[in-house]
């Protein structure tokens, strides 16, 4: 059998193998035949690709809107002449995320690289080393989405490790605190946390000690996500046989050395798919930042269609955002599958 006929055979059994499959295939084809032609007409045949808003008929997509507004959707209010800064931030974050994804790099240097990258990104966005600092209300779009996502996740993980360990601790007070903290955070909607960051936190702080809204949001979101990550990590801790810890104790290792050398490396391996899953959910949750007036990617897209010059091209704006979110999430989930296979292969050896 050649490869082509084999593929054909797989397709035939997959699509028409059983009566149910045939029925599902037929239904899907019918649905697609209803959806695709009008979509194609809207997106290609009736679409406008150049010119200004007047050139756009409302019958088809207005891709010239995307051409005019892509800069705003991606970078929002950031000064255009300093745009290389957010671009660099995106590249830096992409680099550190990629590096963190490769098992070969897992180690001490990466642990130091993270805080340094975050600091560099913050300084870049702030406009450090230029004459005019750029306040965070001018930040927006993709760099904000990525920055908040990466920073909060990275900062939440160490807190989550401590919470997970505390929750499994035999010290009653510590355990109670951890349980209370995790359940309280998980019982609160993220919108509520953001309102606290926006409204309650400034008043709870002593006078004159108010700090940036973006920073407040990052702090609160970090504390919030830590509770979720802690529960995933706890699952990894529980999956390890007790013999591992006992053996470490027998060898004379103290608590922290045991955790560092024996328990956590194994626990993390187990929970990586769970963490990636959480990370994808968190990426999408960053769009809630809009409720406290931070211009994340989605909010910037929405605002771009309110410009009287380009009024009401919401579909086009949302399509751009959907493509960006999809690219990141799809990449993350493919990565997770690849990693699972690789780690499973390692365990078999």
């Amino acid at each position, binding site marked *: 059998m050649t490869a082509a006929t084999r593929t054909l055979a797989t397709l035939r059994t997959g699509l028409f193998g059983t009566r149910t499959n045939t029925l599902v295939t037929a239904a899907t084809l019918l649905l697609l035949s209803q959806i695709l032609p009008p979509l194609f007409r809207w997106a290609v045949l009736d679409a406008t690709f150049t010119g200004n808003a007047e050139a756009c008929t409302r019958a088809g997509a207005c891709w010239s809107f995307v051409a005019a507004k892509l800069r*705003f959707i991606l970078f*929002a209010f950031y000064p255009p002449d300093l745009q290389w800064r957010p671009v660099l931030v995106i590249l830096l974050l992409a680099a550190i995320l990629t590096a963190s994804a490769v098992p070969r790099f897992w180690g001490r240097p990466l642990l130091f690289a993270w805080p340094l990258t975050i600091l560099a990104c913050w300084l870049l966005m702030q406009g450090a080393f230029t004459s005019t600092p750029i306040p965070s209300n001018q930040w927006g779009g993709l760099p904000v989405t990525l920055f908040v996502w990466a920073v909060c996740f990275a900062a939440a993980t160490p807190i989550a490790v401590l919470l997970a360990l505390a929750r499994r601790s035999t010290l009653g007070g510590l355990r109670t605190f951890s349980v209370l903290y995790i359940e309280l955070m998980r019982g609160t909607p993220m*919108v509520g946390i953001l309102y606290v960051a*926006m409204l309650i936190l400034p008043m709870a702080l002593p006078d004159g000690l108010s700090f940036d809204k973006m920073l407040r949001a990052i702090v609160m979101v970090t504390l919030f996500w830590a509770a979720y990550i802690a529960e995933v990590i706890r699952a990894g801790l529980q999956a390890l046989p007790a013999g591992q810890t006992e053996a470490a104790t027998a060898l004379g290792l103290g608590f922290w050395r045991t955790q560092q050398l024996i328990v956590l490396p194994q626990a993390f391996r187990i929970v990586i798919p769970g963490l990636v899953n959480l990370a994808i959910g968190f990426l999408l949750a960053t769009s809630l930042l809009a409720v406290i007036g931070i211009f994340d990617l989605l909010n910037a897209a929405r605002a771009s269609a309110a*410009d009287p010059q380009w009024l*009401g091209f919401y579909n086009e704006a949302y399509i751009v955002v959907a493509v960006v979110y999809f690219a990141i999430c799809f990449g993350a989930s493919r990565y997770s599958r690849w990693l699972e296979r690789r780690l499973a292969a390692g365990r078999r050896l």
Partner: protein
Amino acid sequence: MMTHKTVRRAIQSVAAATFLATTMLSGFAHAGPTLDKINQRGAIKVGVGTTPGFFAPDSNGKWQGFFIDFGRALSIAVFGTPDKVEFTSSSPQQRLPALQSGEFDILLSGVTVTTTRAFKLGFHFGPTVFYDGQGILVRKDLGVTKAADLDGATIGAQSGTTGELNVADFFRKTGKTFTPVTIEDTGQFIDALESGRVDAITQDSSDLVGKRTQLKKPDDYILLPERLSKEPLAPAIAGGDDRWLELVNWTVNATIQAEEWGITSANVDQFLESEDPAIQRFLGVDPSFGTELGLDPKWAYTIIKTVGNYGEIFDRNLKPLGWERGYNSLWTDGGLLYSPPFR
């Protein structure tokens, strides 16, 4: 999977709870007068929204719009230049608590003046800068030019809003009949109108004007002149800073008074030679007037020169969207805009 509605409800209840907590906490929170903070910071923090024509970022990420121009005018009144102002978009649920917590110095986000907001929440309102109200957008081929003539029409209103009740009240008064159609999502109004499912839609007229421009054939529809509700939109500030309030008041008044005198950004320099003592005071030709108030004597001059008078602000931002002046005309033209005298 949460539905859209539950999310909205969750957001609203959280906002309400936070708001309550904020209101209680603000009793102890000690904040200096707003103007001190503004001067210390070197910029005014303004909360805005995103509605076409009123406030929206352009392709370069610069805020543009009717309320934005008043923010720039305020910046001139305080600092002498139009750019010492930071606009931040805020959602309707969080803008009032944010104002109370000191996140903003002023809201120029189209807040309706109401008794509750003044008494219970302790906000101060500047002069109404825009008289909004619920309007009705109808298909032209109905041959109707005023709402009282509407009879037997199918009208779409957003479910669960006062808009639905207002339109029912209105038809009870006129004694005509109509068929209500409730529309859940604000984005569906256009579809309902274009598909012919409804003959007319009713919302705040500021929304309707924006929607009209998104229709495939905007000229086939007209916004009827009547307003079914009163929505005076005014700048809102937190209580406790009288001087800041007066600055807001007189900045808005200056734009209105300038239009009454016919002073525009184009001809303001010619008015410097005016013999009228009131105009001399207004433009700072006679500097003692402004100095006595503790203002830059040229503050009104700079506002008009840079931002323009009320009519210019209106024409620049709202006229392209098809807005008529309507109630937002000078009192001398039969509208509601009236500035107290500058003396």
